Every structure is written in C-alpha cells, then in structure tokens.
C-alpha cells in the first residue's frame, strides 16, 4: 500500500469517527460508546521536546489534548497552539489536570530541539513530541490521522505538510473522548473541559 493510500484509509477512518462523534453528541450516549469512537486509541512512543521519551502511559491520570502539526506551518498550527495556550490560561487551577501534546508530523525537520525552541513559546504547559518517520507513522495509525508531504517550491526545503487539524481529547484513563474541530474557539474548549473535569471529581 502506498503512503497516499494509507493516508486515504486514515482519512476514511477519521470521517467515520467524525460521524460517530456527532452521534454521541446527538444522542447523549455514554462517551466512547460507539464503535467508531472506541477505535481511536492513543498509542505512541515519541520524544518530548525536553529529550525524554514518552508513551501514552506517561499521561495516565491527566486529561490530554493531542493535536498534530509542524513548526514550519505558518497559519493553522500557530493558530491552534495559540487557542490551546488560551485554554490553559483560562482553565486556571484546573489546568493542572490537562496536558496538551503537540505532535509534529514533520519528522525530517522537527527534532526535539526544533520543538524545544518553538512549542513552549506558545505556553509552557504544551509538550512537543517528535519521532522518527516510523514512530510518526505508527502514531498516526493509532490516532487514525492523515498527513502528507506537499511539494511547494517557495516553502523551506521545497515542501509543506497537509495534516489532520482537529484536537483530540483523552480522559485520565486514556480513553478517547472527543474531537474539537479546527477553529473551535478557546472559550468553547475551556467550558467543555471544565464540565468534564468537574463531573469526574
């Protein structure tokens, strides 16, 4: 299977997931009750921008917000990083219960050092995660996300990246909860997180 085909299958899976998430919201079914939603799992071994290797097990006990991007991304990634930074500020003391993770899909350019000079500038709580091409591919398969290299003459190194831009929420047990679509305003994410954190306390 080519990378493009793999990507397309991942896109199909994300579409199915989106439909599942809608169904959950609409019927107020228990979180993670649909087959589609429960098929998303966070399984990864990646290196944090602090140089420490992390797996999903390291984040048990905390809500995690996971999103994908690359540091050469001028528009969407800084926008999402800025929204998440705002969410973390607005959560106040409850921010301690939430760990945002920015996973770079650009394994050629983004090593932990690149992420270290970029990600914390948005908010000190956000952890950047980098990996080898194989690690990123395995992570993408687990999250069922899509990413691709797009040739662009004017871009640094002659390429840019297309990628899934939603934000994934996982509960403290590591269970997939929901997606926030790209552009979901920070106050909306904050209110949703507050309600979920309160409900679990």
């Amino acid at each position, binding site marked *: 299977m080519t990378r493009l085909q793999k990507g397309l299958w991942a896109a199909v899976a994300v579409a199915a997931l989106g439909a599942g998430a809608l169904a959950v919201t609409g019927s107020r079914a228990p979180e993670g009750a649909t087959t589609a939603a429960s098929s998303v799992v966070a399984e990864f071994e990646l290196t944090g921008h602090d140089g420490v290797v992390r797996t999903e097990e390291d984040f048990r006990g905390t809500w995690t917000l996971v999103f994908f991007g690359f540091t050469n991304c*001028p528009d969407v990634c800084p*926008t999402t990083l800025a929204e998440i930074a705002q969410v973390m500020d607005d959560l106040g003391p409850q921010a301690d219960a939430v760990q945002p993770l920015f996973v770079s899909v650009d394994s050629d350019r983004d090593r932990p050092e690149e992420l270290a000079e970029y990600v914390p500038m948005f908010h000190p709580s956000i952890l950047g995660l980098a990996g080898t091409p194989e690690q990123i591919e395995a992570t993408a398969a687990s999250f069922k996300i899509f990413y691709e290299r797009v040739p662009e003459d004017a871009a640094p190194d002659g390429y840019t990246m*297309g990628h899934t831009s939603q934000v994934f929420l996982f509960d403290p047990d590591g269970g997939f909860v929901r997606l926030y679509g790209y552009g979901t305003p920070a106050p909306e994410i904050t209110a949703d997180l507050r309600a979920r954190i309160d409900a679990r306390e």
Partner: protein
Amino acid sequence: MNRFSHAALVLGLFAVAAPVLAGGDDVVVEDAWSRASIGTSRPGAAYMTLRNTGAGPVVVSGLRTDLAMRSMIHSTTTDAQGVTRMSHMEEVEIAAGEAVALAPGGLHVMLMELQRPMVEGESFTLSVIFADGTEASVEVPILGIAARGPSD
C-alpha cells in the same frame, strides 16, 4: 500650463477612469497583524481585511515587503475529514463595496525566506499590488507568537 490646469486635468482623468476599474486607491486595509517568529528559518504569516470602497472590482495580484524574499497569499482549506492543506492564490478578487478577510485558517499572507526575525512590538511595511499596477501599503504590527487576533 499653470498648476491649476494640471490639477484639473488630473482630476478629469481620474473622474473618467474611476468607474471603469478600481485600484489601490479604493482599497482600505484594516486590522493588519502578524505573529512574532523564532528566528528566520520558518515562514511567517500576516492577516488583515482588504475593503474595496470603489465602484468596480479590484484584483490583488501580488505582495511586496522587505521583510521576506517571497510573500504571497495562501489559502488554508480544511476538508470534511478535518485535513488541512495550503495552496497559493495567484489572484484574489474583491467585488465593489466588499471586503475580503485574511484571517487564521483561511486566506493569509505567507511570508517566506524572512530577512530578519519578526520581533514582537515591531512592525513591517507590506505593499499589496493590484492587477492595474496600483498599490496599497500598510504597516503591519508584529504581535506575540501566541496572538489570536489584531487586538491581542
């Protein structure tokens, strides 16, 4: 010819030309902003609203700034599956009386090959070039790296 008749001639030409094709003189640039960069190796972005106050359509055909070797308008699109991609817009048309917003997640000015870091608190001059050869210049403030809009 005295100075007055020069002015009258210019006004006369303008009055004839204006209804046919609007240009940079008719475009008001509002709420321009950009985010600080880390160094110069990564592309930057700038946002603004271009309002065409003229009676005819205007076409944005290019950009120029000494901040970046290359600057162009890109469009970010997100498909039904939540996958986001960028593409270069050769031209952007603004209908008479309409405004086009360059905002996060949509159209944006892509600043490539930065000639200097974008430093919070500073600004840079961006010229918007129209198809008729006219230009509109705007001073773009550089906000913090985590800015979310022109008032941050």
